[in-house]
């Protein structure tokens, strides 16, 4: 059975995957970039299901430096930079996984605009998105990217 790395800041994606995707995938959970990178080494995974927004994560567990982001992108507004890091954390983690050589298909449960999704694909290769927690649509998206 293929393994699906589920990356999120809570447990809703993992619970969903164990309920509705367990006939297709063994679920491997990760709650941060550090855990995701470790899990891709052992036990490894064939595909990824990623939450975009990490609203509940501690800032210390996030990828990215809020001070640097504030200076570079948000005219020194650190609170806005920290919020941006949380809101985009899933794509930042995917970038770290790609940088580490993990090119497996990745699907977000998010309603990305078409242009944004095209940009993600240009940056990160095999990336898909489904707008809702639709088990059949997620399986189809992962199969298309395999």
């Amino acid at each position, binding site marked *: 059975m293929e393994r699906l790395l589920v990356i999120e800041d809570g447990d809703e994606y993992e619970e969903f995957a164990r*309920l509705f995707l367990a006939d297709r995938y063994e679920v491997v959970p990760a709650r941060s970039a550090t855990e995701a990178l470790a899990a891709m080494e052992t036990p490894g995974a064939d595909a990824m299901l990623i939450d975009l927004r990490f*609203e509940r994560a501690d800032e210390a567990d996030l990828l990215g430096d809020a001070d640097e982001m504030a200076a570079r992108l948000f005219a020194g507004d650190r609170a806005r930079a920290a919020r941006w890091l949380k809101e985009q954390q899933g794509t930042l983690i995917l970038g770290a996984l790609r940088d580490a050589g993990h090119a497996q298909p990745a699907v977000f449960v998010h309603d990305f*605009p078409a242009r944004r999704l095209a940009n993600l694909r240009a940056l990160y290769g095999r990336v898909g998105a489904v707008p*809702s927690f*639709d*088990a059949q649509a997620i399986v189809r998206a992962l199969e298309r990217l395999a």
Partner: protein
Amino acid sequence: MTPAEAAAALAHDVGKYVARIARNVPPHGPVPDALVPLLVADLYALPGGERPSARFEALAAALAEDPRVERARAGLWTIDALEAAVRAGEDDACRRACAAALEVEASLRELAAERRA
């Protein structure tokens, strides 16, 4: 928070999670007993514990009147009104709550897509 940010948060924080189990309930036959507590969790407590209808009202305050906001509000009222029966696992109530949850999600997703355009 700008209106576009509020709409995006509504679609993500409320719409996506309120419909998480509802969207995957088998279309025919009784709602499986094992799914009822998970359905209850989605419909009456968002990740973090806040009630979806309360989160909705907090975020919707940043938005102007809009029919999609009203549709979502009506769906959440329906879900709240069905709470006792859904918690009791009554099949008809669970089905109606699932339908309302999907309506909430669709309305909020449409709103968010328009506001970011």
